[in-house]
């Protein structure tokens, strides 16, 4: 009887250890796919593609609308383009949106969005997607590529609460640019939060928030507008609340920005 109890205890302990290792492996592999995972992920993306095809056909938003609005954004007046070129030369800027190739993609799944805030898209390594690329919609930046397999990729949204996920932004006021870090999302208020701004900087509602161009992101992509700000708990800086330009519940088509030289 005692021996049976001991055996049960050993079995239970072994299962517990095995479960812990498996969960640790799951979370530890959050930066890239293993070859093993990639095979399943590609098969999964194929199934998802087949599934969403008929559903996608009846939804109102079409990829045409998305491309069209992107073209509107891209088709800048000739003279403005010349002006940008001149400014680029003067300021020695080497990374503007015009230097990026665009890859249009369809969202395949967004299960577990509440905890992980990720979406899976139908473009992968074979289409030229690599980790860290900016992902936008016609409303502005929505996130960046965090995992790539051969035929699909995972996009971590700006609304992610992941402790390690931060984006360098600039808040453009009337008189200067304030560099800051976008590092979270307030679920209750439905607003993005930006920190690391000196408390002496005066910001007002309606100020524009753009990507700063630091940390591998293209410069000047629209994120949203300032709603309010308050001094942080340590009385050192400000916490700024940003109204995102994108409705994160309604993302079906996205555009990936890829540096031309990559």
């Amino acid at each position, binding site marked *: 009887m005692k021996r049976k109890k001991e055996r049960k205890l050993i079995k239970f302990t072994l299962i517990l250890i095995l*479960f812990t290792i*498996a*969960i*640790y*492996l*799951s*979370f530890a*592999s*959050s930066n890239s*796919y*293993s070859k093993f*995972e990639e095979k*399943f*992920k590609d*098969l*999964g993306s194929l*199934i*998802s593609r087949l*599934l*969403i095809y008929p*559903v996608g056909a009846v*939804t109102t938003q079409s990829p045409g609308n998305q491309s069209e609005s992107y073209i509107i954004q891209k088709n800048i007046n000739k003279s403005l383009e010349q002006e940008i070129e001149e400014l680029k030369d003067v300021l020695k800027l080497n990374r503007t949106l015009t230097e990026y190739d665009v890859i249009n993609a369809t*969202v*395949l*799944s*967004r*299960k*577990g*969005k*509440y*905890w*992980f805030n*990720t979406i*899976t898209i139908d473009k992968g390594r074979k289409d030229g997607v690599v980790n860290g690329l900016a992902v936008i919609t016609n409303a502005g930046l929505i996130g960046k590529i965090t*995992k790539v397999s051969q035929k699909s990729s*995972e996009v971590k949204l700006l609304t*992610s*609460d*992941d*402790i390690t996920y931060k984006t360098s932004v600039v808040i453009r006021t009337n008189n200067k640019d304030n560099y800051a870090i976008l590092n979270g999302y307030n*679920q209750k208020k439905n607003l993005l939060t930006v920190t690391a701004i000196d408390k002496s900087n005066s910001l007002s509602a309606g100020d524009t928030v753009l990507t700063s161009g630091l940390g591998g992101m293209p410069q000047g992509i629209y994120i949203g507008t300032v709603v309010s700000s308050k001094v942080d708990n340590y009385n050192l800086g400000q916490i700024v609340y940003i109204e995102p330009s994108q409705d*994160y*519940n*309604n993302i*079906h088509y996205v555009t990936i920005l890829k540096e031309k030289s990559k």
Partner: protein
Amino acid sequence: MKALILTFSLLLDGVLSLYIPEETIFLPLLTITALFLICPLYSTKNNSYILASALLGFLYDQLYTSQLFLHTIIFIILATIARIVYNNFPQSLLHTIIYIIITIFIYELLMGTLLYIFQIVPVSFNRINYQFTHSLITNIIYGIILYKIIKLKEHKKKHN
């Protein structure tokens, strides 16, 4: 039949998640509801139900979450609970609804606890509660439909 229910629920879950906004009270967790309800269709003499739940969890991770074994483990735990419930507690439509509610709560609690332990995202009870309360309606309706289908199948089996 079992495989068909699980596959259909898994795929429908993914499609619905893509189109149902997060703020609504209709968040789907159809795979978990189906996993719980098909328990009586498996034999209690072997571990085929636990193995099926592990496979389902693995597929769920590969299709939707990109976490290697997270749902494999969670689904095994849920399947073990389902087996205990079906072996020891009464079965009726009302009981099944209560069990579905408990299963969804355990799932959300497990997810929250694991994410909290491994410090992946900030976890609060409010977030767990939000996810739990917003998932009930769709899953209870789906659970009732599946319950009726399974009972019908069991009834036919008895008469054959």
